[in-house]
């Protein structure tokens, strides 16, 4: 099992933890393996899905994200392992729908 699933492109791709609130992005790659990966995958956090940060917890972390109609909270460390691309740029590269 490896944390692949998409090809990262330098300059375009960022980590989810660095995405400002309310900016919709598309998940490109997950830099986690094995047991750490499955809880995300099972909740539909899979390369190709759209993610939008909605709110930070009062302490700054975790952050609440909207994923496929659900609200999911991720810590900063986890969000730093999710490589994303802005939804607009991804439109031509991936088919989010």
């Amino acid at each position: 099992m490896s944390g692949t699933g998409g090809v990262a492109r330098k300059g375009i791709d960022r980590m989810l933890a660095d995405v400002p609130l309310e900016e919709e992005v598309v998940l490109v790659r997950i830099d986690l393996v094995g047991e750490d990966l499955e809880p995300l995958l099972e909740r539909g956090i899979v390369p190709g899905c759209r993610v939008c940060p909605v709110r930070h917890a009062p302490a700054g972390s975790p952050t609440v994200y909207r994923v496929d109609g659900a609200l999911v909270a991720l810590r900063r460390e986890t969000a730093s392992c999710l490589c994303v691309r802005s939804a607009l740029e991804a439109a031509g590269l991936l088919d989010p729908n």
Partner: protein
Amino acid sequence: MNPSGGPAVAAAEFSSGISAADRRPLVALAGPPNSGKSTLFNALTGLRQRVANYPGVTVERRSGFAELPSGSVEVTDLPGIHGLSPRSPDQSVARDVLLGRLEGGRVPDAVVLVLDVTRLSPHLMIAEPVLELGLPTLVVLTMADEMDKGDGALRVRALSRDLGVEVALVDARSSAALEPVRRFLEALCTGGEEVRACPVAAVAKSAADSPQGRTLPVIDLFAARRERARALSRSAGFLAPRPSRVTQRLDALFLHRIAGPLVFLAVVVFVFQAIFAWAVPLMDGAEAVIAASGRYVAGLLPEGWFRSLLIDGVWAGVGSVVVFLPQILILFFFIAVLEDSGYMARAAVIADRLMHRIGLQGESFLPLLSAYACAVPAVMAARTVENERDRLATIFIAPFMTCSARLPVYALLIAAFVPAEPLLGPFLGLRSAVLFGLYGLGLVAAFGTAAILKGTLLKSRPAPFVMELPPYRRPTVRSIATRLLDRAKIFLRRAGKIILSVAVVLWILTQVPRSAEGGPPDIGDSALGWMGHVIEPAIEPLGFDWRIGIGLVTSLAAREVIVGTLGTIYGVESQDDTSFELQAALQRDLDLGEAVGLLVFFVFALQCMSTVAVMRRETGGWRWPVLQFGYMLVLAYAGAWAANALL
């Protein structure tokens, strides 16, 4: 699941040996957490349900019977799952039940799969491995009300056709929700044609959940599964409802940078106050009823050992069990309201930063806080922590929190040995400062222990914190009542037996050997007194004599019992912690170092059989409680010794 999204092939008609008259069909309720599964289960089975643990694990097994016109069906409510890979105890159990490895080797005769329609695509991903099992399945899509409110759309028939199984869209909380489920179960009982096995032939054999099949990276399997789920949603014309306005507004408040922590603090103080203070009249009431009924029964019996056994042993033992119920019920009332309303997940998000520092998760906060009232309900409340290792760590450190049973002991010793002098003018007295210090010491021990545990026995790479925030909902009376009833039954049955046995054994130890006149001996001459003498050499380095030794043994029943025991041993009539006579007796017997040593001993030691009993139940064996008892005893001994050496 049908990979092409096209019509399913003709389903095989369901037929199995369930018509055998002596066997009731077994139906498994499966689905992710917060999908309304338990609401359906409660509505189906009413009060005809049982809660126990699955053998060898700490996962709870909830089962009951649904009565139908043509017979009854056994329904088992599987733990909430996000998939069937055995990565957590919950998912292993769900998987094993569905594969027929549990439930006495029976494969369920049918599955009712409960999914949240507002999250159709991700939940169809969860559905895929369950449908692949090929069991007759009814898919119940809940939250129909949210779909209506948010103008969502779905062609249920199209989805049913594509999945090849019956699909019903319901509002799990309305009484109408039961109809399709009861129809499905009725058909199962009568072997009717409506119950079809899931068409395995049409199912994409995903290998994600079978170990042999792990040829593709798991991420690709899930990506493919997600694509199939999205194709199914699209084909059924699924339009997700708009996100709930109420949820957005409440989150803006509850997760606000300033208001959020304030609301959190208010909720926490409220719950704490309820279990700490408001439970007291109920506990006093329960004790008074037990005492009054004991006196009444005693009046009917002739004096003698039997009356003493019944009243001082069994009756008092029952009292020491029942006295915990108000706190347990009040705490679980709040937990049920907070969880069902959706606030608990927000509270966990707020507390996560703090708990993360000691290697735990936000969910551990409320159990640990409630441990300040009593470790018994706290250990039970640790069930809200999803991650098994973090749950064990939470249970393990909960008894370090200063519970209310320690207070009488602290009050007695502080009053006897700490002068009532101001420390910071009128703001803080020396006695309050010492009490505060004892609370702090417990907290430091708890956090230190958590750090040690998470670095050794419960070592795990920091698991990613993935917490779903369900939409806010109004809790239902039925759901709350069922949960309270469950907890009360579990506590009385499991922990109650052990607590009662300990109380009776302690009574016997005070009764033998009989005195020359045939009556009970003085406590110093009893078997308990003998135990005090036996452990005296062990506690001598701490400056404790056999009298304190007896107190330590009896305080195993409940910490505050040591106050009464010492009162009896010193022959003091008024045996409460404000008794000046008892304080004077202790001042004669203990010097400052020894008194502080005794205080420190009570900060650390697990002098509470009720906690041990409930830990055994909640961790599924003796391993953790024994380790816990030994660890806390060593800490207590070392702490008391150090206090003696330093002061």
